[in-house]
């Protein structure tokens, strides 16, 4: 305060009371007016209910948001994505191929099938794809009888 007197002599001469007053009995009535205001505020903004709903509200809100995002974004994208269409087409094409070749396969006889298989093996040999002994033995034991094999070697 001494510092204030030395540095600001004009200011230190002044009265320190604020130059204001209030209406008569203002502070006596204030409490009642405040009470009225509080009552009106409480009616406008009722106190929040305590309980489990209050704590679950954020989680429920988030869950609802995710569900909404899924419905609005993920589901339409999944429905109209080209991959999905491609997958469907492949299945359809495979079904068509099977429908086309199955009757032809059923009509072919055993000898023609054997000849076709031998041609395939010979073709494979020509292209350099050699069968080893074990594979050949497995193939013959599965598809050719002993008698056929004997007749084939005699000829």
């Amino acid at each position, binding site marked *: 305060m001494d510092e204030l007197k030395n540095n600001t002599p004009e200011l230190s001469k002044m009265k320190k009371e604020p130059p204001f007053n209030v209406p008569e009995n203002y502070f006596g009535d204030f409490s009642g007016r405040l009470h009225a*205001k509080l009552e009106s505020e409480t009616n406008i903004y009722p106190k929040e209910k305590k309980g489990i709903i209050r704590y679950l509200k954020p989680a429920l809100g988030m869950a609802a948001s995710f569900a909404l995002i899924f419905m609005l974004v993920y589901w339409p994208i999944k429905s109209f994505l080209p991959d999905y269409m491609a997958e469907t087409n492949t299945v359809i094409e495979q079904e068509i191929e099977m429908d086309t070749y199955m009757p032809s396969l059923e009509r072919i006889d055993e000898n023609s099938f054997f000849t076709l298989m031998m041609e395939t093996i010979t073709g494979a040999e020509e292209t350099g794809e050699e069968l080893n002994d074990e594979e050949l033995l497995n193939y013959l034991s599965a598809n050719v009888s002993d008698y056929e094999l004997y007749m084939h070697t005699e000829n």
Partner: protein
Amino acid sequence: MDETNRDLITSLKQENTRDRAFNQLVKTYQERLYWHIRKILLNHDDTDDVLQNTFVKIWKNIENFREESSLYTWLYRIATNEAITFLNSRKRRSLLPLNDVSDYLMENLTSDPYFNGDELQLKLQKAILQLPEKQRLVFNMRYFDEIKYEEMSKILDTSVGALKASYHHAAKKVEEYIKKSD
């Protein structure tokens, strides 16, 4: 924190004693908070509005008062924030530049029927209105209320050093203004 305030806070936090304790709080602090706000806003009607809002806010937030500061500091902080928020809303409404609220406050002061100061006091108020907002706050709290810097630091959330410097600059500016206008 003294024993009376501790009892008051305990009563405020219990639902069955809250009403009575709040009435006691209002009676104890209404005048001090009124004059604090009045020095910021200068006009009685505005001060009355802000004081009521301050107590409404205190009522609504009393459960959140964590007792890290004294009750007095907490109440002053709410009152100061409410007064500044009120001034900012006035600035926005009248499209005033953010730092220029002094004209509005001067009009408030001269038109207020509850101003009873002499010419010298009016001059002092005009000088205070020339100060930037933060300096004006610090000057009022220190010069009129003689609030300790440590207490002020908690209310305004500013360091003691910064507050001392702020008051020093403010006092010099006020002194110069008074000398010039003589």
